[in-house]
């Protein structure tokens, strides 16, 4: 069935809450009539009751921390951190608590918690509501980071996230919510650590994630018109990371552009470039090129924000530069 990412997430929450009564949803406004700011939790309170769909006060440390504590003791909470920027408020509970329980307690504990959160620029909400921050999360041992770029992947990956026994942060790009695609009916489970090749090609590899996977795909389509055959890899999960798919594709094409909406320094793009420098050096025919956002906060200014995030044009320019090396 065709549906948007927003609908796919909503449907998956319905399915998983139905399947397992230990799954609960908690967060700010999640039980309101509109199903949260973007309607993601629409219909859940009516179906599963307010004891499983819980409106919380505005207290991110307690929301995320309590979700972790409940996960540690038998529930499978899906907590909503409305915007990833609010990570600033609750980082201790993620960084020092949830991420470490299993290891630090010598394997006694599992923490099956999912933290759903909205990422990315493009909606004019300014410096404190537009960040990406997934590299910060992916840098934490003990946290899995998931970044779907289409509705089918959103369904498959969220299902896996909820069934996973360890902590997962599920990053939803706010500019993609209304993107539509065909989504498999019924149960649909996608493994973590498996990128998808969203377009096959032989001249160059373009790696993207979340919204930049979509941008990479659009760039590849335009490049095809110019006779350039680009292979597009959508990482889908950032931790664990499918290193093999990147290296295999590079072995075929010999050239790599990584597109990442993060700030450039310590970004996912840097991580991929590092991987390739270390383990793909012999296959490289040209330097790796990173296309990222600049090393600045996200301005509220619409005209500057439009120029901030990686664009199809910038990806194409990077590809052409790499090819002409």
């Amino acid at each position, binding site marked *: 069935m065709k549906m948007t990412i927003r609908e796919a997430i909503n449907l998956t929450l319905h399915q998983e809450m139905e399947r397992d009564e230990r799954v609960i949803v908690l967060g*700010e*406004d999640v039980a*309101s*009539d*509109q199903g949260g*700011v973007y309607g993601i939790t629409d219909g859940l309170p009516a179906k599963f009751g307010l004891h499983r769909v819980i*409106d919380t*006060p*505005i*207290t*991110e*440390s*307690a929301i995320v921390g309590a979700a972790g504590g409940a996960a540690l003791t038998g529930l499978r909470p899906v907590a909503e951190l409305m915007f990833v*920027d*609010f990570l*600033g*408020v609750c980082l201790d509970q993620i960084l020092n608590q949830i991420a470490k329980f299993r290891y630090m307690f010598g394997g006694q504990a599992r923490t099956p918690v999912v933290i759903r959160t909205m990422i990315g620029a493009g909606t*004019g*909400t*300014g*410096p*404190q*509501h537009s960040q990406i921050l997934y590299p910060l999360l992916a840098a934490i041992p003990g946290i899995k980071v998931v970044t779907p770029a289409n509705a089918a992947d959103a369904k498959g990956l969220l299902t896996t996230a909820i069934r996973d026994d360890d902590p997962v942060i599920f990053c939803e790009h706010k500019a993609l919510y209304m993107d539509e695609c065909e989504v498999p009916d019924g149960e649909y489970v996608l493994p973590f650590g498996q990128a998808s090749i969203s377009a096959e090609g032989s001249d160059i590899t373009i790696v993207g994630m979340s919204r930049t996977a979509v941008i990479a795909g659009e760039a590849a389509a335009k490049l095809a018109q110019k006779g350039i055959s680009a292979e597009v890899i959508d990482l889908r999960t950032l931790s664990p990371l499918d290193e093999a798919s990147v290296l295999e594709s590079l072995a075929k094409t010999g050239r790599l552009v990584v597109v990442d909406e993060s700030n*450039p*320094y310590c970004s996912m793009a840097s991580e991929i470039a590092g991987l390739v420098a270390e383990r793909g050096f012999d296959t490289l025919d040209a330097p790796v090129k*990173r*296309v*990222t*956002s*600049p*090393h*600045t*906060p996200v*301005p*509220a*200014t*619409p*005209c*500057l924000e439009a*120029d*901030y995030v*990686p664009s199809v044009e*910038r990806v194409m320019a990077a590809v052409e530069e790499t090819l002409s090396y």
Partner: protein
Amino acid sequence: MDMSPEKLVDAYRLMKTIREFEERMRSEYQQGKLPGFIHIYRNQEAIAVAACLDMTNEDYIASTHRGHGHCIAKGCEIEAMLLELACKEDGLCNGKGGSMHIADMSKGMLGANAIVGGGPPIAAGAALTAKTLGNGAVSMAFIGDGASDQGTVAESLNLAVVLQLPMIFMYENNRYAEFTRSPKPDGRIAERAGAFGMPSEVIDGSDFFAMYDACQQAIARGRDGGGPTAIEAVCNRYYGHFEGDAQAYRDQEELAQERAVSDPIPRFLADPRAAALTAEKIADIDVAIMAEIDRGFEVTYAAADPTPDKLYTDVYIHYEGRLR
């Protein structure tokens, strides 16, 4: 209560400016002429104005996402504000902050804040500056009823008591956080603040004169080294959470009722203490307000957007050749 005739005029002028400013913002936003998200302050005007009326530019406020009224009350220029809210180059923050991050350091306005609960620790820091320098300045944090639950707020309350900071916790209890009605009874917030060990009271936020009394006392306490104060101003959020939210989730009868009883402006004008404001004076003030707002929008819409290079102004760590 001591209130000079000039202060009385200022109080009316500022409340009315906020009202007209916000109504105009709304209509321009609805026409798609303004970017981002905006949160309208209507019906809460008496709180900001009473809070800031006795402050100078040396005193500080830390605001919230619903910050336009706080800016105006603290003395920010209408035109400079509008340029910022439209994200123009000559705006207060060069257009980079917009509605949720507007700030004016020259007026002691330490920023709106898109992080709920982000302001109080900053205001505590400003109070620490004032205390350390011994300059008699005070610092105020505006805090929503929803924000009152944040850990940062509790931590700031405690710090302000421990350090005896010249600080005021100005809670605006409009009984809503986004789409959810506050589960707390009125007064609970002040009670909580009081439990940390500071004077606290609950005031009708639509009663300007009661608010002004309470603020004068709190400010005097801060200036005299008497430490922090908390005020819970009970009020009404007239419009939706952000512009565009039709608040279908609210009991419409209750909303109509709350709107009517909590409009601070008619209540202010009906008070005998405002008798010196004649109909003629009011009409003159109103004309001037509308002219200022009209002029502000005219200038704003004629103003330039920032040029692309402005993305890199006020950046102090550069990576040459790999900015992106």
